[in-house]
């Protein structure tokens, strides 16, 4: 015969836990003491059920919408304002530069060497993307590394990760932009790394400002479990190498003159 059930077992049983359920049910059937104990736990839940949630009143949903609608314009404005934050300027600037450089490369190379136009434009695009994504991965790596290497002080109840959270928020938007560009350019390795990085950045961005050491540990475990830090490092390193091997498009004398005019 099993010993009396612990409070934890009774709560798990009441919660529908399946492990050892039959044995527990059998014991409860025979043991008056455990039945009484279960009834007392049940009474806690009954008392919880009796706690009222006051009716927020007629038209609550519409009232909420009125209040939220008033603040949506403000939020939208802030969203636009964030576009001018340095990091967003960098991300959007990079994409704009990609388009502009590809256009210019095409325009100037077309005059002298029509056959090389597409290749040169592609090189320029690739180089700009390689540099920009390399920078993005470098900054993402920093955030992940800071979180992976931090440790709560002894007895610390809450850890403030608001700085990492804000940086992750910025990185999420950049990440999406670069991932889409990489996909369009058919750069599968870069796209898949950015795709794996995105949910982790999103997770950090959506965390509360202050978290418990246990929650912090959970974030660290998620970073470790996906091996994302290593992947980011590998692709970052790969991009550095590619930066060396993807030189700027070769310039002929006439092209150099043309560019100097600009």
């Amino acid at each position, binding site marked *: 015969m099993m010993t009396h059930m612990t409070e934890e077992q009774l709560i*798990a049983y009441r919660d529908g836990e399946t492990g050892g359920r039959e044995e527990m049910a059998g014991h409860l059937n025979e043991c008056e003491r455990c039945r*009484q104990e279960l009834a007392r736990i049940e009474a806690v839940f009954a008392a919880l059920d009796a706690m009222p949630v006051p009716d*927020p009143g007629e038209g609550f949903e519409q009232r909420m919408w009125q209040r939220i609608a008033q603040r*949506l314009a403000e939020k939208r404005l802030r969203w636009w304002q964030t576009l001018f934050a340095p990091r967003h300027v960098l991300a959007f600037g990079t994409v704009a530069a990609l388009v502009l450089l590809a256009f210019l490369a095409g325009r100037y190379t077309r005059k002298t060497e029509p056959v090389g136009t597409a290749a040169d434009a592609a090189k320029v695009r690739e180089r700009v993307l390689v540099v920009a994504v390399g920078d993005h991965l470098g900054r993402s790596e920093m955030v992940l590394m800071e979180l992976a290497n931090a440790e709560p002080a002894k007895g610390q109840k809450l850890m403030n990760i608001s700085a990492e959270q804000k940086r992750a928020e910025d990185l999420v938007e950049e990440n*999406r932009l670069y991932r889409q560009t990489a996909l369009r350019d058919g750069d599968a390795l870069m796209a898949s790394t950015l795709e794996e990085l995105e949910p982790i950045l999103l997770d950090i961005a959506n965390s509360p400002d202050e978290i418990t050491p246990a929650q912090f540990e959970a974030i660290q475990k998620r970073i470790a479990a996906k091996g994302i830090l290593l992947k980011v490092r590998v692709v970052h390193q790969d991009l550095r190498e590619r930066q060396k091997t993807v030189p700027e498009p070769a310039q002929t004398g006439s092209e150099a003159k043309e560019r100097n005019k600009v």
Partner: protein
Amino acid sequence: MASTEQPDSGVVSDAVAVERTLAGDRDAYRVLVERYSLYLYRLAYRMTGNSHDAEEVVQEAFLRAYQKLAQFAGNSNFGTWVYRIAANYAIDRIRQRNVEEARQAVPSRPGEEGQEFDPVAMVKDPSASPEHLARSAELAARMQQALNALTPAERTAIVMRHWEGCAIEEIAAVLKSNSNATKNTVFRAVSKLRKALEPFAEFRGPARAMGTE
């Protein structure tokens, strides 16, 4: 005009409303707000213990969701997603309130301002407004006090598990924890509540010899 029309929340799906909102139709967001406000309010009230904070949580959750809607981009159920945002914000709110309350040397006396029913205030003055309590004022006040004494994680766990019927994995996601740790959090919460209610006969257990005899 479109902006004054009542949204047809029975027809427009969440996914369509999200898509339209992202396309710039602000009124499409109204469908989502009106559909999930009460749902979030119940969660927020149980987590924060008062209407004022609960309404604040509902508003902030929808505003945060609006700002991050492009990131959400239909990856999961909107209700679940905004629910998580609300739960996270409620945790922040409880912590913030705990810090503020700890700073206040003299707590304000409830009931003096003739405000609405507020269980948090009831804890400070158990004799106030007993007619609003479902069972006994004393028991409800003690329960509220016990709920307020739980850590934000424990409170979130018990609210989501018991009242909202959420799966352990779902709670673990909000708490940024794993399933086993979350089960322990639920257990700790129930155990603490039970201890806090021990003065009441129906919660008093037998002599402490459980598990090893």
